[in-house]
């Protein structure tokens, strides 16, 4: 359908998108998961109840979530430069993507953990579990199906966000669509990137659903 150079471009852009999304989903979970755990366990009546801490984390998370991504991306350019050494390119795009995803992940983890039956937590307490044991052996495994779905949702959202990162020269499919599809009037390339994005999202969602069903023993 395309000449080999265009194909090469599409393939490279796809790889860049996958790279951005994979790394930022990963890092966002490394930071967002503990935050979500804290949000849940410090809440009223939970195992580590600490309302002031809960309020502070909740407020920070809400602020993070209410800033539109496109603005966040520009606003944290100094931070991006500090972390990635540059503010343009694929690696640089990972920084705002991750920062945007952390509060999102924290809320998703929180809602997944809140679904865990309080009776089960109580049984674990009655058996003499420490809070750390409850988190590790009860909360996380019991919430695993929801956590996997949350992980999937984050990945899908970040595919969309990563296209926006293209607007500031972040690379990836979004970048390609804007530079060639929009600015050079190559409707065919625009269409092709959209098709790849749809396939990507569909694939991630299907995989996530499948894994979630596999780990669901309820």
């Amino acid at each position, binding site marked *: 359908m395309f000449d080999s150079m265009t194909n090469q471009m599409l393939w490279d852009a796809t790889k860049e998108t996958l790279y951005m999304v994979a790394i930022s989903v990963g890092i966002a979970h490394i930071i967002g998961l503990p935050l979500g755990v804290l949000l849940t366990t410090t809440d009223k009546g939970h195992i580590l109840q600490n309302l002031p801490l809960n309020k502070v984390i909740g407020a920070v998370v809400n602020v993070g979530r209410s800033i539109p991504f496109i603005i966040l991306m520009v606003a944290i350019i100094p931070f991006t430069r500090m972390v990635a050494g540059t503010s343009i390119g694929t690696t640089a795009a990972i920084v705002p993507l991750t920062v945007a995803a952390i509060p999102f992940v924290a809320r998703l983890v929180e809602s997944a953990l809140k679904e865990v*039956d309080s*009776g*089960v937590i*109580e*049984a*674990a*307490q*009655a*058996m*003499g*579990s*420490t809070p750390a*044991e409850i988190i590790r*052996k*009860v909360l996380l*495994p*019991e919430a*695993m199906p929801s956590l996997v779905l949350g992980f999937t949702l984050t990945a899908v959202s970040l595919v969309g966000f990563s296209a926006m990162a293209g607007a500031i020269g972040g690379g990836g499919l979004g970048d390609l669509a804007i530079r060639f599809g929009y600015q050079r009037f190559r409707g065919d390339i625009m269409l092709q990137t959209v098709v790849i994005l749809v396939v990507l999202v569909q694939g991630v969602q299907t995989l996530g659903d499948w894994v979630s069903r596999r*780990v669901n*023993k*309820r």
Partner: protein
Amino acid sequence: MIRLRGLYKTFEGKNQVHALRGIDLDIPKGQVFGVIGQSGAGKSTLVRCINLLERPTSGQIWVDDTEVTSLSSRQLRSARKRMGMIFQHFNLLSSRTAAGNIAYPLELAGADKTETKTRVEEMLKLVGLEDKAHAYPAQLSGGQKQRVGIARALANEPQVLLCDEATSALDPETTKSVLQLLKEINQQMGLTIVLITHEMPVIQEICDMVAVLEHGIIQEEGRVIDVFTKPKSQATRRMLQDTMEVRIPPDLLQRPEKSNGDCRRILKLSFVGPGAHEPLISDMVKRHPVNANILFGRIDQMKDIPFGMLLLEISGEADLVDQAVNYLQSQDVEVEVFQDV
């Protein structure tokens, strides 16, 4: 074994709820101790106070000479490992198999792999679920889930088993088999069991001792056979009414056939233990020429002690009736004048 002193629990909130209002209780070692009460009586709070899932507002709790109310959270965790607990809704980990659930407390206690494996197998065998080791809770019936719950509670060889409405979510048949299992465990291991329920038959089936709880206060306590055959408090009577007490059609009691100085009395006779075997009524009639008419009778078993109840109508000349009643009272049977007509 378990000693509660001056236990109060008040739940703060819009409306203060006084769940427990001064509980003093001694639960001897190796006994099956039942706490019965209507919902809202505070019984669930009571049992949850024993392992401090609920912290009492005031009062002290001793378990096996340890004052649990004064323990640090680390000490409390290790004390909890010596107390098993089972729940109305089983509270199993849905992400673990039956074997995995039973292994949980062993993991907490730091048992190694082989130790855990043998212990889990032993426990599955004890509760009769050897073939369900790899089944997830969602694949088990209610009774099987509670058996897993029991196995999990007993895995660390606790001295006490707390049962919070453990059979209330089960059908009568399954309830029976679960109670049977608890009874066996109590006998084999000498485990102290504290069991709370709103179901009279549960107490009757397995408990040695019972406390009747109402409005956060213990109304009556003692051996099950004594409390149920000779209830002292209104609360107990009310509770007994549904299951044990007799209700005679009012017409029968008011039958107006008194004539020429004859006397008619309705007596309630309660037999406990071996007294139930004596041919009491026929002896009475042979000695004292009165008419005896049995209105109602039942025989039952309270744990292992047979007990019976008979509603007897005696009629005849007044002094003969008196003599007959005196005779009955001199025998190994509880006599209560149900109605003097």
